[in-house]
């Protein structure tokens, strides 16, 4: 187990370097960041040169990348164009997005798995058919439509919630945005669980468990669910990263100042430091989430052992 973890951590290094290098190159290809900084008019040449020097943009890209990575390892992610440290931006944005992600994941786990188990156990029954229809609708409607619709109905028409999330972005404010963010994944989790449950229900170990006279509840939670959860856990695990990085649409609709907002601003203003910094952290989140998923397999199915 320990060796496996170490090996996986070592494998992360090339992935990490490759991903950040790619992002770095992509952002740099977009053009000269200073050009957009002076608004609708041209910066005078002297100021532009001075700014380039300050942000290190006058050096060749490979050198910029090396300096950047060197700084990252000492915890310095550079400075955004508005004079704020990128780490400062991260310290305000990540907690908000992490809260939003937690809400979304909770919805996925609680509603998604529950619905999946219910429908998986009653395949072909009206409950199953209606939930399937519902998930189909959720999957096919784009997130921004769901988001704007809920915002309009709950926020403006009925006045149940505030249409926008305040600066604090507390858990209770994030419930509706979290649900919107989770909606599509939630539908997938339901369908994955349903299929998995329905498949395993006919397997030998479930029949054995039932034959042993175990109570139905124990058969389902201990034997059936535990084995059926492996694909679901894989999905939810990778979804953590996707939700954090992909929250741009949801965050924009509900005015949440999280990672998606900072990334969006960074791209619009072509702020290399912000974009690369945030993506670097997101890459790390992805990698760690994947590792955790793999380790969880062993917990769910003891036959899976890592040397």
């Amino acid at each position: 187990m320990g060796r496996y973890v170490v090996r996986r951590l070592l494998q992360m290094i090339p992935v990490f370097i490759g991903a950040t290098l790619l992002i770095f190159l992509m952002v740099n290809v977009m053009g000269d960041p200073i050009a957009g900084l002076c608004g609708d008019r041209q910066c005078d040449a002297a100021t532009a040169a001075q700014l380039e020097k300050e942000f290190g943009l006058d050096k060749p890209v490979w050198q910029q990348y090396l300096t950047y990575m060197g700084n990252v390892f000492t915890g310095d992610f550079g400075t955004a164009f508005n004079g704020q440290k990128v780490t400062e931006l991260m310290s305000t944005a990540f907690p908000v997005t992490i809260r939003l992600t937690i809400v979304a994941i909770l919805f996925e786990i609680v509603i998604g798995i529950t619905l999946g188990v219910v429908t998986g156990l009653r395949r072909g029954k009206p409950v199953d058919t209606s939930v399937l229809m519902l998930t189909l609708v959720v999957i096919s409607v784009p997130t921004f439509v769901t988001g704007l619709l809920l915002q309009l109905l709950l926020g403006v028409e009925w006045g149940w919630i505030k249409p926008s999330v305040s600066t604090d972005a507390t858990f209770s404010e994030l419930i509706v945005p979290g649900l919107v963010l989770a909606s599509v994944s939630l539908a997938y989790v339901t369908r994955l669980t349903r299929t998995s449950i329905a498949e395993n229900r006919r397997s030998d170990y479930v029949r054995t468990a039932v034959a042993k006279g175990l109570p139905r509840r124990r058969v389902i939670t201990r034997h059936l669910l535990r084995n059926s959860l492996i694909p679901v856990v894989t999905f939810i695990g990778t979804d953590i990263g996707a939700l954090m990085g992909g929250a741009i649409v949801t965050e924009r609709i509900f005015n949440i100042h999280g990672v998606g907002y900072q990334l969006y601003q960074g791209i619009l203003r072509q702020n290399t430091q912000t974009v690369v910094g945030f993506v670097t952290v997101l890459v790390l989140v992805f990698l760690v989430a994947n590792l955790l998923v793999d380790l969880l397999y062993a917990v769910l199915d003891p036959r899976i052992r890592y040397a």
Partner: protein
Amino acid sequence: MRGATHAKWAACAAAVALAATACGGGDSDSGGGSGDSSATLSASWGDPQNPLEPANTNEVQGGKVLDMIFRSLKKYNPETGKAEDMLADKIETSDSQNFTVTVKDGWTFSNGEKVTAKSFVDAWNYGASLKNNQKNAYFFGYIDGYDKVHPEDGGKQTAQTLSGLKLTGDLTFTVKLNQKFSTFPDTLGYPAYAPLPQAFFTDHDGWLKKPVGNGPYTIDSYTKGSQMSLKKWDGYPGEDKAQNGGVTLKVYTDNNTAYTDLMAGNLDLVDDVPAAQLKNVQADLGDRYLNTPAGIIQTLAFPFYDKNWSKAGMEKVRTGLSRAINRDQITKTIFNDTRTPASDWTSPVLGEAGGFKKGLCGDACEYDPDAAKKLIEEGGGLPGGQVKITYNADTGSHKQWVDAVCNSINNALDNDKACVGNPVGTFADFRNQITAKKMSGPFRAGWQMDYPLIQNFLQPLYYTNASSNDGKWSNKDFDKLVDEANAETDTAKAVSTFQDAEKVLRDNMGAIPLWYQNGSAGYSERLSNVKLNPFSVPVYNEIKVS
């Protein structure tokens, strides 16, 4: 059934949670219903692009704040746009080149420090100095010695202060310009010329976290990127005291969300009604919707560095293109009358006396497909048989109008391929291509005035090698007339000379004027006396909250 109970529990939890947010959400706007001069309002805001320093702020969002916390020598009247004395007791000159400024006595910064002549001189020297990277440094370019503190060629800075600025007393200083510029005092209302307290220089980082100025408001708290709350400053010595207790500026990622918040009673003031809502805004807000002219003009500029566009005869093609654009129809259908068809190169906010002249463009800006076709043929046709209008697609609704303009041109010329839009992904890249002189055809060129002077609509944009002359248009007659106008001490005469220069611009069609842009705003029932100034920024200090 375990599964079923789970489902029930989850549904209940969701319902409870929704109800909880409902409880949390309802009580926000009930406060502040009674008191008037102490009640605060909330307004939409965008994240400023640069650190909030007067000489470093060149966009509207940061400008809004500076307008609330700073008062300068002059202030532009929110209704007429005329520059009026604020901190200036008098500004005297005999030759339009040497000015003596006397600062009014009795003004202080909100931290108690006195505003003196030194507050101005230090601030201006700071703004001009190359080592401080101030993006508005060029505003000090008229002052003598600018080339020493801000060498344009990127050479070494040989002086720390402007030789043209001299302190002559506690409340007086002199300004020597490097050229005659009679309307120079009228430019001094621009935020870049604001005075700065000593704290700005001694504790710069601290000041940036919480800027201190001398305006009607003070900053109470500032969370970068999300919210700034400003409070009325009770000790403010000026006449234009705040009529409300304060303003909370909330950063919105999307103006649609801000509008939704206004509809839900969650926000008091939106100063940018999203294009998508323009159709409903009248029904939603009635007379709480403002749509007033602002000092913004949209034009199409041409790449005069490209031989195809600068060769003889092309002025006919450019005029022809101008005549092929149906401005009336586009402003009506695409912009719902939030734009006014342009018929000169300035803006209606200047007023007749300030240099706005309706119809100065004449026939050249009137839609006439037949004349357009004829002119373009006479001029030798479109270069390469097609024009590509370049624009940035990331912000604004530029795509819609560029497509409409092209459509109009194509219809006029009976040619489906005469004009196509050429979107560029980001604004930064768009600017990048402009500075690199990579434009091959007309491109979007919006201009928001810095100060309400006809000079500001002409000189920075069309004078040879001027700071915003993106198309690199150059004309000796135009330059000569601008120089003459600047040297003219009589304002009326200066304005008419500027208009003569504008006629040169028209005859050569140096840029196609498209439309004047209006500022738009919507507000809640709690507010009254809401106005937009000529810069399309709400006049916050005059807003009354009930």
